[in-house]
């Protein structure tokens, strides 16, 4: 009896309408919105750095050690206008793309081989353990003997710098694909290369993309360093050679302009190309925030 009474004993309470309480949702202020823009914050940092550089350059007043930011920009604009820098950059990028593409392709083949057989996995692991810590530039003397002065040697060291980083990340990505997703793929009769293409690659895409970014950075560094070492091969060298040449002629603003170009190209690739791929893929898929 008591139990029944207790069960029926419900205390109702009123809920109030939205007019009774304060803010549920309110737009942010303009300052907050501006501060939330990542690219604006980054631009601010770059502007601050440029300003600091300019001030230091003016204060030091020794253009042979540190030319001012304005001088550097002037040299940059001049050499871009007369076509020197674009030509040099283009010849660098050309070699770079060939090396990067070849390295990525080889990494892909190696990884597919690695996931399909045990001995393949062991092979890739051993090779990456051996060659990933080896600076690609250390192979340049050998490459020069094997391939001579020219694009061949450059591409060889580039492939070496790209391949291991990309293969390592891709393999790690393939391995981290969840058992459930694998079982889903097998449920639809996917196997072999179709399984790799339709399940593993998209599922491991965040890792693959990270590998490509690292590979790109490695390749870019290796290329400039290699060009600084032997630079000119056929007709004209790349950006590394441009820096080396300018230094020999004591055109220090040009040296800085060359460095700035390398930085700008790196920034553009990172923030335009890779960012574009990221927003279209891993971010849209919710695999990366």
């Amino acid at each position, binding site marked *: 009896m008591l139990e029944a009474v207790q069960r029926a004993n419900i205390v109702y309470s009123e809920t109030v309408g939205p007019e009774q309480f304060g803010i549920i949702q309110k737009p942010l202020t303009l300052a907050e919105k501006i501060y939330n823009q990542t690219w604006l914050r980054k631009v601010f940092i770059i502007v601050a750095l440029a300003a600091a550089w300019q001030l230091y350059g003016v204060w030091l007043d020794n253009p042979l050690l540190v030319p001012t930011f304005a001088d550097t920009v002037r040299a940059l604009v001049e050499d871009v206008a007369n076509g020197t820098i674009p030509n040099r950059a283009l010849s660098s990028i050309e070699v770079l793309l060939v090396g990067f593409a070849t390295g990525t392709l080889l990494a892909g083949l190696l990884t597919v081989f690695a996931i399909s057989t045990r001995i393949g996995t062991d092979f890739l692991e051993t090779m990456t353990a051996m060659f990933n810590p080896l600076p690609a530039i250390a192979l340049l003397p050998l490459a020069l003997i094997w391939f001579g002065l020219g694009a061949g040697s450059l591409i060889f060291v580039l492939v070496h710098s790209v391949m291991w980083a990309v293969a390592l990340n891709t393999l790690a990505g393939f391995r981290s694909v969840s058992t*459930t*997703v694998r*079982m*889903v793929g*097998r*449920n*639809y009769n996917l196997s072999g290369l179709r399984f790799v293409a339709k399940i593993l690659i*998209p599922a491991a895409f965040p890792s693959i993309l990270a590998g490509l970014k690292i590979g790109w950075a490695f390749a870019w560094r290796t290329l400039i360093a290699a060009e600084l070492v032997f630079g000119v091969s056929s007709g004209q060298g790349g950006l590394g050679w441009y820096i080396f040449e300018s230094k020999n002629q004591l055109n220090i603003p040009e040296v800085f302009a060359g460095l700035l170009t390398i930085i700008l190209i790196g920034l553009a690739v990172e923030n335009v190309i890779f960012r574009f791929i990221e927003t279209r893929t891993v971010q849209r898929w*919710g695999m990366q925030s």
Partner: protein
Amino acid sequence: MASGATLASSSAFSGAATVRPTSAGRAAAGSDPATPLLDVRGVTIQYKTQAHLVTATYRVGFNVLQGDRFVLLGPSGCGKSTLLKAVGGYLQPTEGEIRLKGELIRKPGPDRIMVFQEFDQLLPWMTVLGNVVFPLKTTGTLDVKAAYERAMHYIEKVNLTKFAHSYPHTLSGGMKQRVAIARGMAMEPDILLMDEPFAALDALTRTRMQDELLGLWDDTQFTVLFVTHSIPEAIKIGSRILLLSPHPGQVKAEINSVPRGQESSNEAAALGREIHDMLFADQIEEAPNA
């Protein structure tokens, strides 16, 4: 032998009309004029871990008929998920055989679509529609246009038309499971294999999903093999329930559940208690925690 063990335990509940000892149950199914869709016979499954050889199930047998809602019920460690994976073709039994429509199951295939418990079973790089269309296209079941039409039809059935172009990471857990069910049903497989699909959902969503699944079944009468460790869920979802004992999984009883829509009746409650008693008869030390 499996039948010996089950007979011994079944004597305790011989009064219940809905519970049949396994051997009798199997005989009844065998004499049924309809040939079983899925025929599991004397299946022992063993797998190796780093240090042990584990026997997951021991000589389990059952038949699933066309249109059955067949539930594998048992505590954790009874090998019910392993059994389901074997039906899916992901594991090979060490003994016995599993036949679908008389064909021996050797590997996974689109005639048996799995619905998993994990939310990551949806492919994150495709929209809801893409996910449902994907198996239809890759297996070559339908041409592109027909595949999209059928996918939309099943997405509508699980009430996700508005979200057809959303990516999985923007959906709630219940919605993800609905997409997985739609994806499975769109393939119109011979049998849908569901591995505790609602176990990771909150209680309210789970109840709603169970009702929706039954609603879908009323529509198309698909055959489903459903794994759960929840007694109320088994009674509600299943038309037939196979009760498994743990370590290793052996058949304890095969049960006809209460009719559709009577899952809150006294009869269902009594059946639930009986199943509970059977499950915990031989593991008293665990009962207080349950």
